[in-house]
């Protein structure tokens, strides 16, 4: 079935995930929904432990046995990945969905030459000879900016620098010209200068191949530079979703505002780095209602602890899960200016 240009490539719809087994953790992911279209870059952002990696693993069908999907769908080109058998999935991953992981050194097989690992990707999905795959691998290495690709094709991973290894991973991911790329913290493990190079590479490839990209990251700087749409996650829930400009200029959720405030910025008057007080609640011990309310300067009893949380539209392509903003008792403009730290210190945290 040929997908329409404007129908989404990837749709995560109401994903609910529990951890079963010895340490039960219900509601690890609670109603996560977002979509990625062709030529669109969606950034999934949040602190560690917010569930963004778990979501990515669900999209990749890499969930551990103890993680069970309770409800929801993950649709790729209209078909629910969660309902598909192994053989169908294997035709999608690699061919239509390419993946780049965080740590390239450990994500590459140390005993196999890099060229062979790239060629292997071709061999799995494309009917071509081994020699042709190898030629393609060399081309791909050239494309991702690896110098002397005809020599490097026979290198082992440990012979390459971190930046080179990540380029190899990217080459592998795009080897079959996938429609969607999933990048899980692709630049986090790299030196800062190399990060910029790799991002540039991804940008050029994105244009060239027209891929949709799902970028999982905690780095707001990367998001600002690279994403079209931002999905903010906290404690297993999506708390805000908006085009990238809107997120930075007009956040509509206290958590997003606090996240932005905690970013060190050149040009700001010198002050103490604003940190979000408190800690992410351990899974299984989530507060009722809004999961952020125990750390939120704007939490109001009766509203934030009572109702179930859902995303509501507050603008063009802009949705928030803040109950107070949605009911109208909180003006988003108040979020950016407020000094979160002082507010919490004054009002104390509510349980």
């Amino acid at each position, binding site marked *: 079935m040929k997908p329409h240009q404007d129908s989404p490539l990837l749709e995560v719809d109401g994903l609910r995930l529990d951890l079963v087994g010895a*340490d039960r953790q219900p509601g690890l992911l609670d109603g996560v929904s977002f979509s990625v279209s062709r030529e669109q870059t969606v950034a999934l952002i949040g602190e560690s432990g917010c569930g963004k*990696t778990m979501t990515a693993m669900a999209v990749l*069908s890499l969930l551990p046995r103890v993680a069970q999907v309770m409800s929801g769908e993950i649709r790729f080109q209209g078909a629910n990945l969660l309902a598909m058998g192994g053989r169908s999935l294997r035709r999608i991953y690699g061919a239509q969905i390419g993946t780049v992981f965080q740590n390239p050194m450990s994500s590459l097989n140390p005993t196999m030459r890099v060229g062979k690992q790239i060629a292997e990707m071709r061999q799995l999905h494309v009917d071509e000879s081994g020699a042709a795959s190898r030629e393609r691998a060399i081309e791909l290495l050239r494309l991702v900016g690896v110098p002397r690709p005809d020599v490097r094709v026979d290198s082992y991973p440990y012979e390459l620098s971190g930046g080179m290894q990540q380029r190899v991973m990217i080459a592998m991911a795009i080897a079959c010209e996938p429609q969607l790329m999933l990048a899980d913290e692709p630049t986090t493990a790299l030196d800062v200068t190399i990060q910029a190079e790799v991002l540039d590479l991804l940008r050029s490839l994105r244009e060239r191949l027209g891929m949709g990209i799902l970028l999982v990251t905690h780095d707001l700087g990367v998001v600002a530079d690279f994403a079209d749409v931002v999905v903010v996650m906290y404690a297993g829930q999506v708390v805000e979703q908006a085009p990238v400009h809107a997120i930075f200029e007009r956040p509509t959720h206290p958590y997003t505002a606090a996240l932005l405030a905690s970013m060190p910025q050149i040009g700001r008057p010198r002050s103490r780095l604003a940190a979000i007080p408190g800690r992410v609640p351990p899974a299984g011990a989530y507060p009722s209602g809004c999961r952020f309310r125990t750390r939120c300067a704007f939490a109001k009893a009766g509203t934030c602890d009572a109702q179930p949380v859902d995303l509501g539209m507050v603008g063009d392509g802009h949705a928030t899960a803040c109950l107070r903003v949605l009911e109208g008792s909180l003006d988003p403009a108040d979020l950016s200016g407020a000094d979160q730290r002082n507010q919490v210190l004054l009002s104390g945290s509510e349980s």
Partner: protein
Amino acid sequence: MTTIVPGPTALPKRRGAMRRLLQARAGVISIAFLVALVLVAALAPWLAPHDPAQQSLGNQLQGPSWDHWLGTDGVGRDVLSRIVHAARVALLAPAISVGIAVVLGVPSGLVAGYWRGRVDQLMSILADTLLSIPPIVLAVSIVAVMGPGLTTVMAAVGIVYAPRLFRVVRAATLSAREELYIESANSIGCSSGRILLSHVLPNVASPLLVQVTLLMGFALIAEASLSFLGLGVQLPDASWGSMLRAAYDDKFRAPYAVVPPGVALTLTVLAFNTLGDALRDAVTARRRQ
């Protein structure tokens, strides 16, 4: 259906803690077993229902009965009593063997690993040589020189296992030494001996403890093998190995007489092995912290 794969994920550390608990439980059980065994061995004369040496020629190779829980052996002796008494050998023999192996292997391993050079080369060649000879042949040769008997067997087993300990200690010393080079730059004036004792030894102690525990099990099997061959414990004393020999000689009359001594051996070796594994896990866990 989601395709599940075992792989690295952001999974709770509690699963590791669960496994450690189980291991700890296994370790606890094996310690309990070994303590019980020591008690049995120590209190053998009071615990054994019969005199282990008393023959009863009308009563040979009886199966289990109320009077003889594990039956009788080829000359009518109570199997249970013999097993209980032989527990002493089952604990002493490995202990002394491993003790000898420690005395021979540990200091030499320390010296070789720390000072390296010619001394290390010579010792390593000697260790490799001893290790290339099939252990049984080496042990039999030693026993042949010294004459059969339990003491000889213990010495033989100790000598056979010494090179293994040498290797472990040498390796641990080598790696400790690597780290020391950095420290040595700062600790000027510290005598080698002191460095060895206060820095190397603690590093070596943990893998050594693990190896020693595991070796106890192997030493027990080695003693049993040699006694089975007739070279170890001499009559009328019993070890589980020699009991196996006697039982096997009577196999046509009583095919399952080999079970009790073998079970005793297996359980004891199992206890040592489990304890050794639990120690190894505990040591690696601590190191990771």
